């Protein structure tokens, strides 16, 4: 139904474009007046007026229709004598009614359900019909309004500008609201978590074992259970593991990325650059899950084999394997960002250095790199926040047990891995275990936010220097 409506709105507003354009043209010729805008603007004006109110209405209606129908149906079912004790059971009954209406329900149908299904069908019909009527009403009203405006030779160009500006504003508003929504959902769930677990126990605890939190309902927690839970959510092993793996990754990515960036920017001939730069950037295009199984199935066992030959115990899921592969994944970020930064160092600085007799490597070491340093730091920090937020590789290659260790050959775990572990499968949404995922998400979010902020500041500072 909605698709038919959308199609009709589109067709109708498109034809209005041509109508508006030719109509205003003929009016201006007939009455010999100068139009306030080009005829096509009158066409746009009609299109916008015809489509936007109707589309907005359709969107709002589609958002609220199911909610309203649901509450009405649940109420009718209750009046019919259906018994449900909480929201979940009510939802179940509603789903049953819906299934009966669609003919996909194969259980026993009692009279209550049958009656409710009939009522459901009735309401659906009613809502659909009124939706169609209302939409056409809105279209007709707005078209009449805009046609009248056009006949009065309004300033269509300015009006179109205003409407477009509004549209663009709404788009950016949606982006901002989404961000806020995510932050608040993280925040509220985290607050629930922190109402059970003390913030300091969380931030400074050295033991992470959320599987101990089998408590169902966070609000009805007993003192004994609380004692049990208190030290199950220590954040330290996770941040330690995360930083450790990110550190190993940067150990790989920064030198290789930076050096290849320098090579690309300063030494490579145009031909070499044209071929090798896209190849390096392909690395950035490989899905992280591919890196993940490469780390888990190839590199991890390889390290273990080598370790065995050297007489070392190497876990097959090791921080070293995960960090190494993550580092390789990050190389293109560091390399292409530092390449850009080095390229934007003005040639005049290099000339100045060559002119006093410095060689190429002296110039790079003493003039180009220092000049590009803030930008390079920025690129490294962006890479760090990328490493901290990376999930797939560590899930597959780093292990799940939260060991507090600095031995790169042992398995360790990260924040993102734990979030995945907590939320995989069926979960009770009000247990502290599940809520801890939100707390972890919030902490991770804040950490990467701070890093990104510092990175952007560094990059900005750099930009100011040469503008």
């Amino acid at each position, binding site marked *: 139904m909605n698709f038919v409506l959308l199609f009709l709105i589109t067709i109708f507003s498109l034809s209005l474009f041509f109508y508006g354009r030719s109509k205003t043209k003929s009016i201006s010729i007939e009455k010999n007046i100068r139009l306030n805008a080009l005829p096509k603007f009158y066409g746009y004006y009609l299109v916008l007026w015809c489509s936007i109110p109707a589309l907005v209405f359709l969107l709002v209606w589609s958002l609220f229709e199911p909610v309203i129908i649901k509450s009405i149906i649940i109420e009718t079912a209750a009046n019919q004598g259906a018994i449900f004790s909480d929201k979940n059971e009510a939802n179940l009954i509603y789903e049953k009614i819906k299934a009966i209406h669609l003919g996909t329900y194969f259980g026993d149908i009692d009279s209550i359900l049958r009656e409710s299904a009939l009522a459901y069908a009735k309401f659906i019909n009613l809502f659909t019909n009124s939706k169609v009527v209302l939409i056409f009403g809105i279209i007709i009203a707005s078209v009449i309004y805009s046609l009248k405006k056009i006949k009065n030779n309004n300033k269509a160009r300015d009006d179109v500008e205003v409407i477009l500006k509004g549209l663009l504003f709404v788009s950016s508003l949606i982006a901002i609201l989404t961000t806020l929504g995510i932050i608040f959902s993280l925040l509220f769930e985290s607050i629930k978590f922190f109402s059970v677990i003390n913030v300091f126990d969380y931030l400074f605890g050295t033991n992470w074992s959320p599987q101990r939190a089998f408590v169902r309902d966070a609000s009805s927690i007993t003192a004994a259970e609380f004692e049990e839970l208190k030290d199950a959510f220590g954040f330290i092993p996770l941040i330690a593991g995360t930083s450790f793996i990110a550190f190993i990754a940067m150990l790989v990515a920064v030198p290789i990325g930076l050096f290849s960036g320098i090579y690309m920017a300063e030494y490579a001939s145009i031909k070499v650059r044209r071929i090798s730069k896209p190849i390096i950037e392909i690395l950035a295009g490989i899905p992280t899950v591919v890196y993940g199984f490469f780390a888990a199935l190839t590199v991890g066992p390889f390290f273990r084999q080598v370790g065995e030959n050297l007489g070392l115990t190497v876990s097959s899921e090791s921080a070293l394997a995960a960090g190494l592969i993550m580092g390789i994944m990050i190389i293109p970020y560091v390399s292409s960002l530092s390449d850009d930064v080095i390229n934007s160092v003005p040639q005049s600085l290099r000339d100045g250095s060559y002119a006093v007799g410095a060689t190429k490597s002296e110039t790079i070491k003493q003039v180009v790199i220092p*000049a590009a340093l803030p930008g390079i730091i920025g690129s490294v920090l962006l890479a760090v926040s990328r490493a901290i937020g990376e999930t797939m590789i560590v899930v597959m290659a780093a292990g799940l047990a939260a060991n507090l260790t600095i031995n790169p050959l042992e398995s360790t775990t990260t924040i993102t891995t734990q979030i995945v572990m907590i939320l995989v499968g069926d979960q009770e949404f009000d247990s502290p275990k599940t809520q801890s995922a939100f707390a972890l998400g919030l902490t991770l979010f804040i950490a990467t936010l701070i890093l990104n902020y510092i990175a952007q500041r560094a990059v900005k500072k750099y930009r100011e220097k040469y503008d």
Partner: protein
Amino acid sequence: MNNIKIKSKNLNVYYGDKQALFDVNLDLNEKEVTALIGPSGCGKSTFIRCINRMNDVIDICKVTGNIEMDGMNINDKDLDVVSLRERVGMVFQKPNPFPKSIYDNISYGPKIHGKGETKSELNQIVENSLKKSALWEEVKDRLDEPGTSLSGGQQQRLCIARAISVNPEVILMDEPCSALDPIATAKIEELIDELKKTYTIVIVTHSMAQAVRVSQKTGFFHLGKLIEVGKTEKIFKNPDNKMTQDYITGRFG
């Protein structure tokens, strides 16, 4: 008449397929200022960049012919470019101080060439260079401030000090005043007058007045060819060539 310091014979320069200089024969006298004038793109800058081999930086650039300094072939493939540039300094169109302190801007060159091994020797070099470029009085109390914090004219004098710091024999100046206001320009011109006692100077300029003020010898380039060269006075008063006449009187270019 001073000795000839630099002598170019049938010098040709190509950028890829495009020829930028055609058989340039030009002699530069020692401890004298030679001005090179001509419309944009006529090869003046290309010529002076041959003297310190700055054209090496450009991949597609090819130089043929002969250019000699004190009888040494500059264009020799085996020539040590580093020591050549130690002897031939350069100042660019736009002031290009390094984003380092004033002190480090000057000490950069000497350090590269292993001069000024002790701190006090280095201090002495920095002070002398800044004095020679008439900047010392203005910056002596803030040597650790970034070179980019100076005004445009001061930056250009800093760049001149940087060129002087390695004690070169020749200084090439590529439109050193084109980005400066008249007052800063006057200061630089005064400085050039002073510097020619010690150094051989080649200056590329778009300002006829500047050429007249600072130089003893002037060469006029057009479309990659050296049209006329001679004493500055003669070039500007009664040039032999019609084209030179037209250019200096502003009829083209």
